């Protein structure tokens, strides 16, 4: 699943370690999300969105929504 995780993290100057600690997952999990090797559960997507103080869809664009398809 595509995400804006890497961009949002870079904007805040956070490392993968810092984000993983804030969310309560491994650094490997953050890396897997950024490289599209893992689709997050709804719970994890909400936790990540909460860490960035953004709605979920601004972190993980809905792939089933036509306006995000391009």
């Amino acid at each position, binding site marked *: 699943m595509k995400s804006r995780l890497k961009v949002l993290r870079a904007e805040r100057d956070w490392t993968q370690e810092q984000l*993983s600690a804030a969310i*309560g*997952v*491994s*650094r*490997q*999990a953050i890396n*897997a*999300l950024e490289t599209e*090797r*893992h*689709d*997050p*559960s709804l719970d*994890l997507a909400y936790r990540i969105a909460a860490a960035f103080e953004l709605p979920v869809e601004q972190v993980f664009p809905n792939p089933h929504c036509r306006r995000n398809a391009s």
Partner: protein
Amino acid sequence: MTDGWPRSFSYTIGTVANWALFLFAVWLLSWGSGEGRLPQPALWAIVLIVGVSVAAQFAAAYRLIAHQDEYIRAITAKRIIAATGLTLTAAVLWGLAEQFLGMPILPMWVIYPLFWGLFGAATPFIRDTRP
């Protein structure tokens, strides 16, 4: 000592202990069964110890998976499924070859180290949790 991600410190300790017990017990059986060095009840007790070490290792692996985050849990489960499939395939092929093609008879307990060996071999190739 804190057990940070991937929360595997206690698993590593348990794994080393279980494998040490397994290897020592197999060696002891091999030594003790030769020339009647150990009585039959002692050999049975050692066989049970091997069984306990195998069960304990799988219990440790289960606990490890239960305490991981969703990514590591999913990827570990995927690797275990791959290792199980490869192990059973090898066991069935070899078993049939033993029975019908005269291949040498291997002791059934080698399935256990074979499984973990295949788990390790599969690990670098399975890095994606998606189907």
